[in-house]
Each structure stands twice: as structure tokens, then as C-alpha cells.
């Protein structure tokens, strides 16, 4: 065993429920022993399209919640945005349908030993993995403030049960249809100062993560973010999902966001590197 993917298993799992919530589908799957292996930040990879599908690659989805007790045994919950053919196919599954799932995959959010003040920032369905994280932080005695942003109200995912574990929840939308009109970063500084935030956790589109990281940097705060790169395999064998990351020695390496991520240290990411290899990257042409 190599350690890589070591908690992952492959399983045909049953759809227990599929509910529309705003622009998303909240889906629950009976996954048995897979549930107990999940830590917040992990994702699962799902085959889509059925037997004679022309979609040959799995689709990655962050785990929203996992619970290993309950009447159906272990369950995993996902928040699905119907985007293209694959995610639409998944969002159309009915109760009792079975799908093939591999997981849990990837890195997870690091949890500080001592109680700290944490700010969680999510964009769109990027809020999904943050609620499970909030619950854990809360139980560790941390103060947890949360900012969720999206283009419009329907794209903010903030379920009641999730809200319970946060001390304060703030919303922003670009069209002002919910919460403050604007972006998540508009609210960050205020909250950071008001609550003496020690650490920032974020998940959402790359552009948002980059903006969040700027703020974190300017306040010298730790920032753990879950990145989202196109993935062909999700298990580290294809090298399609890479992002440039500085290692301890400061060398920039194209690292696989499926196994060295999705959760990475924001300060180590070389942002804005789509369509280019950053200067001085290890082995750059």
C-alpha cells in the first residue's frame, strides 16, 4: 500500500433521496462503510450516463455530509448543481436507482488542536463541505463565522440544519437577491477584525478562492481552500487536474488536486495560472 487513496473504496450505492433546493439537488446515498471514512473536504467520484453512455469519465462531488449511523447504515449527502450532461443525469436519478461511487478521495480540512476563531467562506455549491467542517470546529469549541456568496439567491446553499453549527451566517449575492449585494470578500475584513479570526477555510470557484487568499494574506491568516480543477480520473493517475503549488523548499510543482488536494494551503498556491506554467516551476520548459 502506498498511502495514496488509502481510504477510498468503490461501491454500487443506492439513491435514498433526491430533493430540489434552489438551483441544486440535495441527494442522499446509502454507502455503507464508505461513510465512516469521510472527513470534511473529501470528495467522491461517480460514474454517469448509464450503460451505453458516451460520457466515459467520472464526475467529482464534494461530500456535504456523511453519517455512519442511522436507519440506512452509512449515508453520504451531496449537493449537485445540474451543469452539463453528467451532473444533469445524476440530478435526474430516482430513489432506489443505483450508481457507482468511488470515495472518499482527496485531502481534508485541517482541524486545529485548540479552540480558535474560524471564518468559513463558500461560493455557490462550495458551501457544501463547509457545514460538516463547521460542526466539527464547533464541537472543538471554536467560534465559527460563515460567509456564503453566489451570483443570485437560488445559488446559495444554506440549509437550516447547517446553520445550527455556525455562530453567524452572512450572505452575499451579485444581484442583491439575498444578503448584501456584492462579493464574499466585501464582508471578510469586517468579520476578521470583529471576531479576531485566526484561520480561514474556503471552497468555491478558483477566482473566489484567489480573492479570499489575498485577504487572508493581507491579514497574515492561515487559509485552507478546496480547489476545483477538471478531473479525468480523481485518483491521481492522469495528471489532468494539476495546479502549481510551492512545496516546503519553495519549489513550485504542478500538483494533482485530486490527491494533493482538493484542500490545499492557500498561501502555497500560485494563483491565476490557468493556461500558463508559472516562472520557475520545477521542470518548466
Amino acid at each position, binding site marked *: *500500500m*502506498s*498511502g*495514496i*487513496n*488509502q481510504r*477510498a473504496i*468503490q461501491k454500487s450505492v443506492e439513491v435514498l433521496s433526491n430533493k430540489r433546493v434552489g438551483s441544486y439537488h440535495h441527494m442522499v446515498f446509502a454507502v455503507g462503510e464508505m461513510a465512516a471514512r469521510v472527513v470534511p473536504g473529501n470528495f467522491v467520484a461517480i*460514474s454517469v450516463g448509464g450503460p451505453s453512455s*458516451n*460520457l*466515459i*469519465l*467520472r464526475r467529482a462531488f464534494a461530500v456535504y455530509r456523511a453519517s455512519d449511523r442511522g436507519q440506512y447504515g452509512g449515508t453520504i449527502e451531496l449537493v449537485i448543481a445540474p451543469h452539463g450532461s453528467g451532473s444533469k443525469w445524476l440530478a435526474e436519478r430516482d430513489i432506489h436507482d443505483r450508481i*457507482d461511487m*468511488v470515495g472518499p478521495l482527496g485531502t481534508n480540512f485541517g482541524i486545529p488542536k485548540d479552540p480558535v476563531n474560524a471564518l468559513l467562506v463558500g461560493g455557490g455549491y462550495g458551501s457544501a463541505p463547509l457545514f460538516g467542517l463547521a460542526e466539527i470546529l464547533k464541537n472543538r469549541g471554536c467560534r465559527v463565522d460563515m460567509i456564503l456568496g453566489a451570483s443570485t439567491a437560488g445559488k446559495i446553499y444554506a440549509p437550516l440544519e447547517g446553520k445550527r453549527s455556525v455562530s453567524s451566517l452572512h450572505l452575499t449575492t451579485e444581484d442583491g437577491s439575498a444578503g448584501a449585494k456584492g462579493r464574499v470578500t466585501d464582508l471578510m475584513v469586517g468579520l476578521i477584525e470583529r471576531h479576531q479570526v485566526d484561520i480561514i477555510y474556503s471552497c468555491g470557484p478558483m477566482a473566489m478562492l484567489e480573492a479570499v487568499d489575498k485577504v487572508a494574506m493581507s491579514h497574515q491568516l492561515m487559509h485552507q481552500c478546496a480547489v476545483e*480543477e*477538471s478531473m*479525468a*480520473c*480523481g*485518483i*491521481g*493517475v*492522469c*495528471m*489532468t*487536474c*494539476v*495546479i502549481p503549488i510551492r512545496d516546503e523548499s519553495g519549489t513550485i*510543482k*504542478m500538483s494533482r488536486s485530486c*490527491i494533493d488536494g482538493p484542500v490545499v494551503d492557500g498561501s502555497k498556491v500560485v494563483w491565476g*495560472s*490557468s*493556461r*500558463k*506554467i508559472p516562472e520557475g*516551476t*520545477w*521542470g*518548466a*520548459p
Partner: protein
Amino acid sequence: MSDFKAFDFRTRFGTKHFPSPIFTASGCAGYGRELSQFFDLGELGAVVTKSIAVKPRSGRPTPRMAETPSGMLNSIGLQGPGIDDFLEHDIPWLQKSGARTIVSISGESIEEYASLARRLRSVTGLSGIEVNISCPNVENRGLVFACDPIASRSVVEAVRRNIGGELPIIVKLSPDVTDIVAIAREVVDAGADGLALINTVLGMVIDIDARRPKLAGITGGLSGPAIRPIAVRAIYQVHSALPNIPILGMGGVASGRDALELVFAGASGISIGTATFGNPTAAIVVKTELENLLKERGFTSFTEAIGAAHER
């Protein structure tokens, strides 16, 4: 249907025998570690490692992939740590894991291929070398070696000269040529013990919203079930011309039936590439299904089935 009569699944490339005819495809199984969680690598004929270069390579920028109908494009740009790091960290792990290993090498000049061969010469316990010649030749306007019979031949001669001993050399050809049989003849003539068919097909996807090529590398390699008919044709053509040269067949194999098509066309082994992305255990699924299909058809050994579609 599977009966219990002993079935001989072994196959051979050059001097080496393999207990199973199912291999990984270079670049689709990393250096083995990632898949070891999903199955015992010893179940494979061998792990064919991601093509390794002399120096570390960052590879191309992202986006590096685009899904296409029943296929995908990739433009990884041969990202890797370089041969030193590879020999120091990856080969030892593979050997401890109990996997047989075929090392795929790629170079930008004849001399690079030669020096890679020299480095591997000293490594014990390898099962073979796969020479990926679908790489741009910096000494010839970046023309891909595999597209030029003479350049292909020179690469193989250089590797043969430097590898020494009896380590099988499997040369991997590109389908993007007018006459693949001509290239095959050259490299066999130059000392190849086997051929790997096929590498990806040059393709492109355009992002109609961004109005530019989807991949940062502009073009990419097409793989997956979409190209299987091209692989079957290439294998069939080369096996008819060179019936005694073992072929490691690949291109869109995702099931035992797919694998059997390539075997009947003339493949002595099957590499599983893109299918692993859709299913981490694809290689094992294909292995089991293929064994059953062969038994159902009354074969008592794998080798009897090689090239069976040529018989009539």
C-alpha cells in the same frame, strides 16, 4: 459458463513471460502507487509506467483535458520527475509492491533516448522498456519521431545499442501516419522485440464560449472507446505484415469483449488506459471477462487466440 479446466493465461514479449496479458497503459496508471489501493498490481502482466524523460518536466498548462463523445483529449505534456528521481523513488516502490514493471521512456533527441537506455541498463528486475516515440524531435523542427521512419529507426537503434542484455524493447507507434506498417517494419528491423499500438490520435476541441481551443496545449491526444476501431485496424494491419512480432494492443478497451477484439486482431497483450479513469478496477474487470470469454470459446491458452481473426 466458466469451466474449471486449467487455462493458460500467460503471454510473452521478447525474452520475458508474463502471467497475465493485461497491462496498464503508460500515463494512465502513474507509477503504480495510486492504483495499489484498488487491486494487487501483481494481477497485471506488468505496470507500464508514465513515460519518463531525462530531466524533470512540468508538463503543459491547464486545461489539460476535454471529454469528447466516448473519448477524451489530453495534453499532459509528459509531466514527470525525470529519470533520477524516478529511479530513486518510484522503481524501488514498484519492486517492493511485487508488480512487474515495464518502463516507458520519452526523449527529445536520439541522445536522450540513448542516455535513458543507459540509465535503465543497470536496473535489475525490469520486465521491459516501452519506447514512446510520439514525441517532438527538437533536432528536427519538432517533427514527431513516430511520424518519420528514419527518425523512428534511429531511436530504436540507439536504445538497442545502449540497453544491452536481453531486456525486451517494445516500441510504441502513433496512428497519425499514412502507413503504420512501414514504420513498424523500420523499428522491428532496428531491433524492436515488440510493438505497442496505438498511441492517442491527434485531436482538438474548441470552447465555443471562449472562442479558442479548449486545451491550453491547443491540440491533444484522443483516447477511449471512440478510437477502438482505429486501434483494431492498426493492430490487424501490422499483425498481417509482421505475424511474429508481439503486439501490446491498446485503444479504448473497457471490457473483455473489447480486449478480445484486439487479441483476435493480433495483440499478444492488452493495455488499459482511459478505462481506468472511469473505473479504477477496469484492468481487473477486463482480465476476468477476457478469461471467461476465451474459456467459453473453448480456448485452453491465451496465445491460441492471438490473431484468430486472420485465419479465414
